[in-house]
């Protein structure tokens, strides 16, 4: 845990000086390590690409840490339980994901960056910015909520058409209730609802490309070809940080 600096006073109490973290997303992070985030809808191939990049970085001798959305020990269980029962309203859903992220930021991401590792984030705050807004949370409110996040050195957006996203998921499984956005009641048909809801998510991602300077990778290309593009973009970031 990050303990604040404190100055001891004569009466034994301490004056607390805490850093203001609410402007973090506006400035580059001060840590030794590198933070690379990947974003995109389910079935965009981003996890595969991240996995391959991790193998490559490790073979080059870099220490890596992979961190996945909605995986903190603290709250992921509550989120799963709430989803199962279908009782979460949009605001609570959004706040629980933010709590999960804050916990991972504190206990996984920042410590790894301080040690000088390459942190690979499979989904970052942009997932929440896209999904929560698609779920009708206020854009301004969600951006404020996540303003404490560490700014990634680079964010990659694996872009695929929504139909391809669905086709790729269907190879192994059926989209679940929340992935399909069934809570939004856009259609009574699960697949139609998925297409409509994820379509909204893609629109949000697209609108963030410029705002957050995403590196867009065409997720419809062949896997090795995408991987080459991905690595070519990672090299300069690594060189800049580690020389």
């Amino acid at each position, binding site marked *: 845990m990050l303990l604040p600096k404190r100055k001891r006073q004569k009466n034994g*109490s*301490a004056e*607390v000086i805490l850093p203001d*973290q*609410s402007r973090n997303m506006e400035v580059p992070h001060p840590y030794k390590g590198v933070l690379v985030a990947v974003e995109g809808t389910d079935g965009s191939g981003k996890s595969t690409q991240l996995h391959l990049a991790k193998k490559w970085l490790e073979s080059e001798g870099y220490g890596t840490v992979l961190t996945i959305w909605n995986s903190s020990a603290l709250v992921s269980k*509550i989120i799963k339980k709430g989803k199962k029962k279908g*009782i979460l*309203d949009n605001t609570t859903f959004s706040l629980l994901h933010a709590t999960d992220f*804050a*916990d991972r930021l504190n206990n996984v991401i920042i410590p790894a960056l301080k040690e000088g590792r390459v942190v690979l984030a499979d989904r970052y705050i942009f997932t929440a910015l896209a999904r929560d807004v698609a779920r009708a949370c206020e854009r301004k409110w969600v951006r404020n909520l996540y303003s404490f996040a560490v700014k990634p050195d680079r964010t990659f957006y694996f872009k695929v058409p929504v139909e391809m996203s669905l086709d790729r998921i269907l190879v192994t499984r059926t989209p679940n209730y929340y992935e399909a956005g069934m809570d939004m009641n856009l259609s009574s048909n699960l697949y139609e609802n998925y297409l409509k809801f994820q379509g909204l998510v893609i629109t949000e991602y697209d609108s963030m490309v410029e705002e957050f300077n995403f590196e867009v990778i065409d997720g419809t290309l062949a896997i090795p070809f995408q991987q080459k593009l991905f690595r070519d973009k990672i090299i300069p970031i690594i060189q800049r940080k580690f020389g």
Partner: protein
Amino acid sequence: MKKNPYPGKLIVAEGLDGSGKSMCFNLIKNWLEVKGYAAEVYKRKQSALVAQTINEAKLDKTLGPITYSLIHAADFSDLMHRKIIPALNAGYIVLFNKYIYTSIAKDYLRGQNKDWVLQLYDFAIEPDIVFYFKTPLEMALERMTQEEKEKDFYESGMDIGFGPNNFVALRHFQTKLLEQYELMAKLYHFTPLDASKPIQHQIARIKHILEDLLNG
């Protein structure tokens, strides 16, 4: 924050622990029911979904300050959407003990940016009345330290370095908290009650004000 659009009323009590808020609200609930109004008392950390996790995590002392703020906001949001809004919608008089103002003050003292916290709680519904139980620090501290359950690591502000031990940290943290209540009382037009007087005085005053609200 949006104004209360529902037929029910949202009545809030704010003030340091040990200022008699819960006792007053329980008595007021009975009084309202005798008068024929449906009333319910609520406080934070009653949301079945989140409260247990908060308590477990507090024992482990692994919560960072931002995580602490967010998980409490999630707990509040769950309570708000599943209990408070339906109750207001059904015409209940909701008596809420320590609403968002306490959270905002505590989060601010935990080092969060004030605008960030205000925006975080923007989804809450603006109360119809906020009673501010005004207590001198010494009296509140005395009552707090007499309680059976000692204030924990987080409640005393030890997690963010407010003092080397629970006792010193608690005094320091509560001093700062009192300052924040005083500021907010002016800013948000709280209705002050002198909580150093016997409880009968406060009850009489609350009844008087609620009668005006319910008849008006």
